[in-house]
């Protein structure tokens, strides 16, 4: 019964320091709840502990998820640490798009993923996108790739947490590497079978924006997960460049979908980059729930 325990972080509101409070929205009861629960799990909310959490959250601007070590995405509870980006709610549109494509693969009806299909996730971080998609498709398998070994370790633990370890492979690879196609082909859980979906949420913040970011992002989340070069599109160019060799190596095939997250102003440019490598493919741009063009889906032809 949530309401039975007075929440020390809500009690601070509206006068005292209140985690998650900002000028437009006031207190964030969700944050207060997560922090209170965290202290509860740690053995209680005594004054010293509350003060320490408030210091980390308010003075140091640490994100709630790094304080509690947990994040929530789709239906999953995931482990996070400062080695990985905290999953963003708006990325769920990538999961919807990927799952939609997997289900459409064989028959247009739901649950048609009986035939084992494969998903690749480039820059998997916590593994959130891949694990959420697999959780919806009982027969599918997936390969998650990240340049950060720490991220791979966390993704592996998250796969276990979600009970999906048997359907997930993880590899510490660089998606800009010239040997990517061969490396992926060697790591796929279903060798020799092209992936139906390749998804990625690569870093897309421009070098210029990095300095002006909210401190809770800039000072705490890994820059390897955020910075996408001068125009924010460096990783998309790298991924686009890989498409011909991915097709040649049989990692992708005609009909495979590339599902990418986009920064708020980037969707069209990203679509153009990918289509340059695959001119007759079809493009679909989907919005997140804030109305931002968030997801670029390119179906290869």
């Amino acid at each position, binding site marked *: *019964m*949530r*309401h039975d325990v007075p*929440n020390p972080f*809500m009690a601070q509101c*509206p006068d005292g320091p209140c985690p*998650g409070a900002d000028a*437009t*929205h006031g207190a*964030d*009861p*969700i*944050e207060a709840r*997560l922090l209170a629960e965290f202290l509860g799990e740690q053995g209680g909310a005594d004054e010293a502990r509350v003060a320490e959490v408030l210091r980390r959250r308010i003075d140091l601007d640490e*994100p*709630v*998820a790094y304080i509690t070590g947990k994040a*929530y*995405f*789709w*239906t*999953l*509870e995931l482990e996070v640490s400062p080695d990985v*980006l*905290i999953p*963003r*709610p*708006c*990325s*769920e549109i990538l*999961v919807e798009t990927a799952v939609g494509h997997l289900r459409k693969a064989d028959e247009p009806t739901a649950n048609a993923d009986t035939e084992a299909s494969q998903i690749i996730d480039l820059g998997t971080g916590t593994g959130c996108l891949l694990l*959420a998609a697999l959780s919806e498709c009982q027969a599918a398998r997936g390969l998650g790739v990240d340049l950060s070994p720490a991220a791979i370790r966390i993704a592996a633990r998250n796969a276990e947490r979600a009970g999906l370890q048997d359907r997930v492979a993880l590899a510490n690879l660089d998606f800009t590497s010239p040997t990517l196609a061969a490396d992926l082909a060697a790591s796929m859980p279903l060798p020799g079978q092209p992936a139906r979906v390749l998804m990625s*949420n690569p*870093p*897309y*913040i421009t070098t210029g*924006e990095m300095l002006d*970011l*909210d401190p*809770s*992002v800039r000072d705490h*989340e890994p820059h390897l*997960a*955020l910075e996408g070069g001068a125009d924010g599109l460096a990783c998309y160019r790298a991924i686009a460049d890989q498409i011909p060799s991915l097709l040649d190596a049989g990692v992708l095939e005609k009909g495979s979908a590339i599902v990418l*997250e*986009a*920064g*708020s*102003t980037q969707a069209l440019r990203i679509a153009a980059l990918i289509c340059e490598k695959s001119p007759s493919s079809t493009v679909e741009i989907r919005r*997140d*729930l*804030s*109305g*931002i063009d*968030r997801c670029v889906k390119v179906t290869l032809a």
Partner: protein
Amino acid sequence: MSGSADSGGGEQSKSTSLHTVQEVFRSVSGMVEAVRVKLETRGVREKVDELAKELAREDLWDNPDRAGKISREHAALADMIESLDAFTTAMDNAVEMATMADEEGETQVIADCLSELDQIETQVKRFHLNMLLDHPADRLGCIIELAAGAGGTESCDWTEMLLDMYKRWGEQSGYQSTITDTSPGTEAGLRSAVLQISGLNAYGWAKAETGVHRMVRISEYDSNGRRQTCFAQVNVMPLMDDDDDNFIEIDPADLKIDTYRASGAGGQHVNTTESAVRVTHLPTGVIAQCQAERSQHRNKAMAMSVLRSRLLERKLQAERDARREQRNSLGDNSWGNQIRSYVLHPYKLVKDHRTNHETPQALAVLKGEPEYLTPFMESYLAQTAADEDAVQGGESTSSA
């Protein structure tokens, strides 16, 4: 009524017992007959035959969902008729047995028959009440929304008490009660709360609770210990299974789904826990939002479920309004009307203003004890049904 006044003993008291058995038999038979007539007027027997025909069709299982529904409905209705027949048989047996026992002077057997009849009477009463829940939506679970009225902390405290009352009522009635959302009052209590009760007929019973609930007591928050009145608003809506589109169909094109609090670039640029979702049904303007869940996906699912409940409740309310226009008797229990008072000082009394049902066991009611709270719902249902039958009776002469 018993033979105790007669000093004659033996013979006399035996035949008086048989007399009692016969009297009880007549009164329970009367109840059973009344129920049977109701079943007949509602065409339950015809409906059972109709469903049986459906069940016999060869292509029935081509649509397993529909087949499941039909066979469940058939079983439920057939069950009703069978139980009624079973009541009649059991009563006939009891009377026959008592008559024989009377001839042979076995007083104990007569007493047993009498208690058997008493049990049947209880069962018939329960059966009758369950029959009152005859709208297809009645069998659903429900969402109970509570909101504190004006009056600050006092009302917030009252809202929390009501939440507790319904939560316990659900649990003790064999349902599953889950608090899905609360927003705390500034000092104590709750400004608003949402309780979900799942299980068969939860909506049918709890729908009686929609309206304004008033509390009178000595305030815990007033240092002068004055008597205080405060209000809380209760709104009960049916809870549908995700795949149950029997009740209401929503065209996805009519929905606008958005995050009502997020702003700016979003994505990698911000990492707040913000995942609230709002769903707007454009044709009606009905809105449901949820921020209690941890992920956007779950908030969206919850908001959708609340939206479906709101739209269905709206539809049911419209049906009720239409019927009320015809009968014009029972007090309106729609949003905004005071339906019940809970007085704790200077005496204890809970009283329903629609049905005049009341009990001095105020604390037991507030603890959600079904023995005390459910009769409030029963009396409302019984009264609604009585009004309905009156209207139907009047109608059938003119229309059928």
